[in-house]
């Protein structure tokens, strides 16, 4: 096999539900592997916050949409001789298959490396797949493909209800679900057909065990399984939504090796070269199995398996794609051994998904065959209980581990029976609660179908808690027995904080007690071979089931806590910051210690840092590591809010916090202190107040005038933050969503309408600003900055505004003596500037600003923090001869029922950033990258209040002159007609009349929907909601913000005239 010279790697775009950070990890590893082999690399990925799109990764990086059209353009320009499709999730795979089918790859002589397209297609087309598997005697669920609802109904009758319906070729199980009867089947099929022309009706295997194997094969037919994993939740819940344990816990040797053997047979017969994942259902009462799925690419599970075993699957897969054999590739962890082996684990790994369902209105919280989670955590322990409890805390859902607290059962909790039967994101707590209420393992198993082994371990945890509760009640056992109780609790994964709350003590007291008694965690290595060979591995975790540390303390270096699980509001951008901080510290000759618990990240690749602790980001654990390692200090400003929140506590515990001082971080974080500081500096801010009763809140709102922004400090359910437009809604919101008391006040602040939102990302050293980037939002203030469309450099600001922003920023930086990264958010009305937020840490836009400005702001910040020499850079990103646009990636299609509307609470799951010589070009590329399409013909408008209708008129005219046909709801149609624009009036969804908006949406007659919400009448709100939801469900591009819609139409006009600029990032200099 001839080694290719230039290889195109396809990324996966913005993070979305079902396709998240794991592909930054796999793409980065592939690029590293290619680089080692001396192969030139081209990367297409609009996800600007990723490590893979950083300097030194690919030779050419294109921030372009991952669509066949754009990829073709890059191929035309770059002329690669090879392409990798397996490292960018389903997006890359689908894109590659299309290019192959269209003959583009053949035409330009681009060879698909690794697994062939034919083999991929075999795994993607269920009918071909089942045929192939049956030919080698492997078993699959009974399944019938259907291309119409009628066919699906017949198939269901043949197989027998309940049946599973899946959309073929869809990522993360989109459109799939259980149907118990014909009615459910019909509605499910309707949605599935909007995503895919083919629907599969399948045998239902509820209650079977779900087991996965990660398989690697080289072109010499060497084939191994790197890891097997067992789902805690039985079949029926998407593996991405399941708690997953590695290795399998309840499989015998016979079962383990039967499934392994089948995996090898299947993978050989399909002809995979590289990595692939195979999922099984295994009958808990016999050795019957079914193959559920084969993913002929790196996946979420393979990222997890990589981190769980220390076997670098993506790196190895890339080498195999280039023609290497497994026998040649060294084992990167042991160095002494080879990659042709199956890791032996001497620990237990637990993955728990992270959901953010409470951020959405109307969303369905039940779990099923589709993904809803936005991220995940992985924990490692030497008992299942330890790993499980650690993982629960890592998710950041506010639980101290397994706990029977009522609040953890979720706002929709009705009864234990339902909560156990009908899995939601809270079921684990319901299981624990059941044990607390005296249920037996058998009874919980009956309701949940979770294997009794797992349940038994959870029941054992409850037994320990019961003993602790007795102690809390004053029945303290004497002497050694008490010490042993605490030791067994720690071995079962209880945190100091958890013990403190059960025992009615303080966390510090528990810590002091166990330190005095020598109850300390041991540091253990992950070495892929269970200590059989000496390994120089730096991949570590802590456990209480140990008597010896595998490594000795560093005694030096810099510790960087990471950002934890990806969730709404904190995602790959903070991983980029952490990895860059580590890289700079290493360049400066410092030893680096990374702490993180997210298996989707690059920061948890053990070759990124000198020591990797795959651990909790809690005070207890960070302090454990700090006290063991004794580094020179901790950098808390890179991993977002989680590490930032530890600043004061770590400082109080005597740790050295590098960069801006902890007390100054506290001055910025504490609303009262910060407000006083702004007053002192003469900087304006929106009026606000801490309030403890609804009456006070109403009074304050009246005095400053509606609308007001309401921010409760303690949230029971629903959105944490909201805008109230009148007193009725203020009171309703306060009564529904919050607990108001002096301990839990609500912050009410004046919401300023029709103003611009501007941000500054900057780096300072001892209070002096080194570099800054001012960005503006296309949306008016009121849309969360994480959801906003952000432009750098700001294109439409007054010079005076910029001057004021700089002045204010300088003052704040000096006052807080900032050293390191920080971000301030402003709102501006004409030239009146108010500060709305200030964070003394890197913000989510740091990678975007760094990449667009070509000044690595994290490198600069890390140098400032470590007091190192600073490189010469410009002082700001103001005069760039190009424009960057950052756009939010939403996942509304995954969240059934959720209203796809933007507000003060963040709703996006990811982002992209594109660059162009002018705003329109960059903007349009960014929009196409997050899934918008250039509309072909019909556009539906309902443009909200009169003011917006007037504002939109010009854009409507542009649409007409570009040849688009306009459709509109009553008021909008009347308005457009009276202004001389042709437009077809349609009835609202709730009206019975035709032509109706709903009918046309269902028939997919529109190419674009612009629906600007109003804030008045209930009925109209409901109509608007129905339109928006239908647009999402039927996969029709939707704009709900007038500013973005207008900008889109401008960009459309510009695009029609000029086309797209296809330039690599490296060419913008």
């Amino acid at each position, binding site marked *: 096999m001839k080694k290719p010279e230039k290889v195109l790697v396809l990324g996966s775009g913005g993070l979305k539900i079902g396709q998240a950070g794991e592909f930054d990890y796999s793409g980065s590893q592939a690029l590293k592997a290619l680089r080692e082999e001396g192969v030139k690399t081209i990367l297409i990925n609009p996800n600007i916050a990723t490590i893979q799109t950083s300097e030194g990764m690919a030779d050419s990086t294109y921030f372009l949409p991952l669509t066949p059209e754009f990829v073709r353009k890059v191929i035309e320009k770059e002329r690669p001789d090879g392409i990798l499709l397996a490292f960018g999730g389903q997006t890359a795979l689908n894109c590659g298959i299309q290019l192959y089918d269209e003959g583009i790859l053949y035409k330009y002589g681009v060879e698909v490396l690794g697994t062939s397209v034919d083999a991929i297609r075999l795994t993607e087309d269920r009918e071909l797949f089942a045929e192939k598997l049956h030919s080698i005697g492997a078993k699959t669920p009974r399944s019938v493909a259907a291309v119409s609802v009628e066919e699906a109904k017949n198939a269901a009758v043949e197989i027998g209800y309940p049946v599973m319906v899946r959309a073929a070729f869809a990522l993360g199980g989109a459109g799939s679900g259980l149907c118990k009867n014909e009615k459910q089947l019909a509605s499910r099929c309707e949605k599935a057909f909007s995503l895919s022309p083919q629907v599969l009706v399948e045998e239902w295997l509820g209650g079977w065990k779900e087991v996965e194997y990660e398989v690697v094969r080289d072109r010499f037919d060497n084939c191994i399984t790197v890891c097997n994993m067992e789902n805690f939740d039985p079949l029926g819940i998407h593996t991405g939504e399941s708690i997953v344990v590695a290795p399998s816990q*309840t*499989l*015998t040797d016979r079962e383990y090796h039967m499934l392994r053997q089948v995996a090898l047979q299947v993978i050989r017969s399909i002809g995979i070269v590289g990595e692939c994942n195979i999922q099984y259902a295994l009958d808990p009462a016999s050795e019957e199995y079914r193959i559920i799925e084969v993913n002929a690419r790196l996946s979420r599970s393979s990222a997890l398996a990589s981190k769980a075993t220390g076997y670098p699957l993506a790196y190895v897969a890339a080498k195999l794609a280039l023609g290497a054999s497994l026998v040649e590739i060294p084992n990167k962890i042991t160095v002494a051994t080879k990659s042709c082996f199956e890791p*032996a684990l001497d620990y237990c790994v637990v993955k728990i998904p992270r959901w953010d369902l409470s951020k959405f209105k109307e969303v369905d919280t039940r779990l099923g065959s589709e993904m809803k989670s936005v991220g995940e955590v992985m924990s490692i322990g030497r008992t299942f209980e330890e790993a499980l409890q650690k993982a629960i805390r890592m998710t950041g859902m506010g639980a101290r581990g397994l706990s029977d607290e009522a609040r953890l059962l979720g706002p929709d909790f009705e009864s234990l029976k339902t909560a156990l039967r009908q899995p939601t994101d809270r079921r684990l707590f319901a299981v624990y609660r059941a044990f607390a209420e005296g249920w037996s393992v058998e009874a919980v198993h009956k309701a949940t179908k979770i294997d009794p082994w797992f349940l038994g371990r959870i029941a054992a945890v409850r037994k320990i808690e019961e003993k602790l509760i007795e102690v809390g009640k004053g029945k303290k056992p004497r002497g050694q027995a008490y010490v042993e109780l605490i030791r067994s609790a720690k071995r079962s994964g209880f945190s100091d904080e958890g013990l403190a709350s059960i025992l009615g003590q303080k966390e510090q007291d528990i810590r002091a007690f166990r330190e005095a008694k020598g109850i300390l965690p041991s540091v253990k290595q992950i070495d892929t071979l269970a200590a059989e060979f000496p390994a120089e591995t730096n991949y570590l975790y802590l456990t209480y089931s140990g008597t010896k540390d595998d490594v000795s303390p560093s005694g030096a270096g810099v510790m960087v806590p990471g950002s934890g699980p990806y969730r709404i509001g904190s995602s790959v951008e903070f991983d980029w910051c952490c990895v860059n901080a580590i890289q700079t510290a290493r360049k400066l000759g410092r030893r680096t210690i990374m702490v993180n618990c997210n298996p989707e990240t690059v920061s948890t690749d053990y070759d990124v840092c000198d020591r990797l602790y795959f651990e909790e980001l809690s005070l207890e654990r960070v302090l454990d590591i700090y006290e063991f390692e004794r580094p020179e200090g901790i950098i808390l400003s890179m991993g977002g809010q989680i590490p930032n929140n530890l600043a004061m506590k770590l400082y109080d515990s005597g740790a050295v916090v590098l960069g801006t001082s902890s007390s100054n971080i506290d001055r910025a974080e504490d609303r009262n202190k910060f407000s006083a500081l702004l007053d002192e500096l003469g900087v304006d801010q929106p009026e606000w107040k801490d309030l403890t009763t609804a009456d006070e809140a109403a009074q304050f709102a009246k005095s400053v005038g509606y609308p007001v922004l309401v921010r409760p400090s303690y949230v029971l359910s629903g959105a944490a933050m909201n805008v109230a437009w009148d007193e009725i809604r203020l009171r309703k919101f306060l009564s529904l969503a919050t607990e108001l008391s002096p301990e839990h006040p609500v912050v009410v602040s004046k919401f300023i309408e029709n103003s611009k939102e501007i941000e500054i990302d900057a780096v300072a050293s001892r209070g002096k600003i080194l570099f800054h980037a001012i960005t503006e939002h296309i949306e008016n203030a009121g849309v969360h900055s994480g959801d906003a469309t952000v432009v750098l450099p700001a294109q439409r600001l007054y010079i005076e505004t910029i001057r004021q922003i700089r002045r204010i920023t300088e003052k704040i930086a000096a006052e807080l003596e900032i050293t390191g990264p920080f971000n301030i958010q402003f709102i501006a009305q004409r030239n009146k500037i108010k500060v709305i937020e200030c964070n003394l840490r890197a913000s989510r836009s740091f990678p975007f600003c760094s990449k667009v400005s070509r000044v690595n702001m994290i490198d600069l910040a890390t140098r400032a923090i470590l007091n190192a020499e600073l490189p010469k850079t410009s002082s700001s990103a103001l005069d760039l001869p190009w424009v960057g646009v950052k756009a939010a990636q939403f996942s509304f299609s995954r969240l059934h029922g959720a209203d796809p509307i933007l507000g003060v609470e963040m709703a996006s799951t990811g982002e992209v950033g594109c660059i162009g010589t002018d705003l329109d070009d960059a903007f349009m590329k960014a929009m196409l990258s997050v899934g918008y399409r250039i509309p072909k013909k019909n556009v539906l408008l309902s443009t909200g209040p009169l003011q917006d209708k007037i504002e939109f008129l010009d854009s409507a005219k542009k649409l007409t002159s570009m040849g688009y046909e306009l459709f509109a709801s009553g008021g909008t149609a009347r308005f457009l007609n009276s202004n001389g624009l042709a437009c077809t009036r349609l009835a609202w969804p709730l009206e019975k009349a035709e032509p109706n908006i709903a009918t046309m949406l269902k028939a997919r007659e529109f190419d674009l929907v612009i629906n600007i919400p109003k804030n008045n009448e209930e009925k109209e709100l409901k109509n608007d909601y129905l339109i928006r939801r239908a647009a999402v469900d039927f996969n029709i591009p939707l704009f709900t913000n007038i500013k973005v819609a207008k900008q889109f139409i401008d960009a459309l006009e510009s695009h029609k005239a000029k086309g797209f600029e296809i330039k690599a990032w490296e060419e913008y200099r």
Partner: protein
Amino acid sequence: MGSIKREAFLLLEDGSEFRGQAFGALRSSSGEVVFSTGMVGYPQSLTDPSYRGQILVLTYPLVGNYGVPAMKFDRYGIPLDFESEKIQVSGLVIAQLSEEPSHYSAKRSLSSWMEEEGIPGIAGIDTRALTQILRERGVMKGKIVVASSSAAGGQKAEQSLGEIQDLDETNPVAEVSCEVPKLYRTNPKAPTIALIDCGVKANILRIMLDRGANVLRLPWDSDLKGIDCDGIFISNGPGDPKTCTKTIASVRRALQGDTPIFGICLGNQILALAAGADTYKLPYGHRGQNQPALEVGSQRCFMTSQNHGYAVREESIPHGWEPWFVNANDGTIEGLRSRRRAFSAVQFHPEGCPGPRDTQFLLEDFIDEAARQSSNRRKA
């Protein structure tokens, strides 16, 4: 959980001491302490005759999860799910014991099985730390000592390590071999394999029988002279191969003929010794299910299950013989074969149990070779 645990200690020859809780039979026991990195298959491992006399340390921390099945036999009268009819190890050392197993086939817990069979176990051990000691200092003798009274603070029984029987001096093969010859199936058309039982694992027998062979199972010290067969198989077994002088002599005579010979594990070492090669003790052996065996002269690498403490010295392989497989990790010999005749053996376990069976075809190839031999003989 709940019941008060008896404290137990693991004492090693080098003076190391580990404290944990006793399970299984509450009695003390000694043996050579070895570790295995396999993650599944404790019923198979514990009954593997190759572990005879050894205290087994499992590096995977959670053990006993799926319990222990009932002792059942297949149609040949060979145990299913177990590799012999009883527990062969002297003791078991683990991190966490599952006392509430969950599996449809489980008939008892690991602890109660070991109790029935009189084998002690110790749980609550940092088996990773223990493994590191064995890896660095080599396998050594050790003893599980159960405290005389129950609960914490119980007195550690005064026990000396001197009582530990020396494995290398006794002949454990004699203990695990069958006492009298036994013939499994008599099909006049099928090839007959003379199986020298040094402690053969159940699944080896089963694979041979499933492949259609007649198997004549012979005690380890049987004389092959006068035995009419189409293939000679030398089984796995415990201990130092050099103690099996009678077997070596017998195989040496067989090498003069042209009946196909195949060996597994101890059988590999015996074949090598019979051919004139030498064997040596590895510092800590290979015990696990993930050992990569590279077929010499190819790019093929197989995942193998292994359980051995001795290896064939590469430099000693005589003229006319060649290495067949080598370990991809440490380069040790994993198999050898004659350049001229159908004599071969592998150090690993093609039959798995526990572990992968990616190389089961080797055993089947041997039966097929014996079948050819048989039909040739009949023609002649």
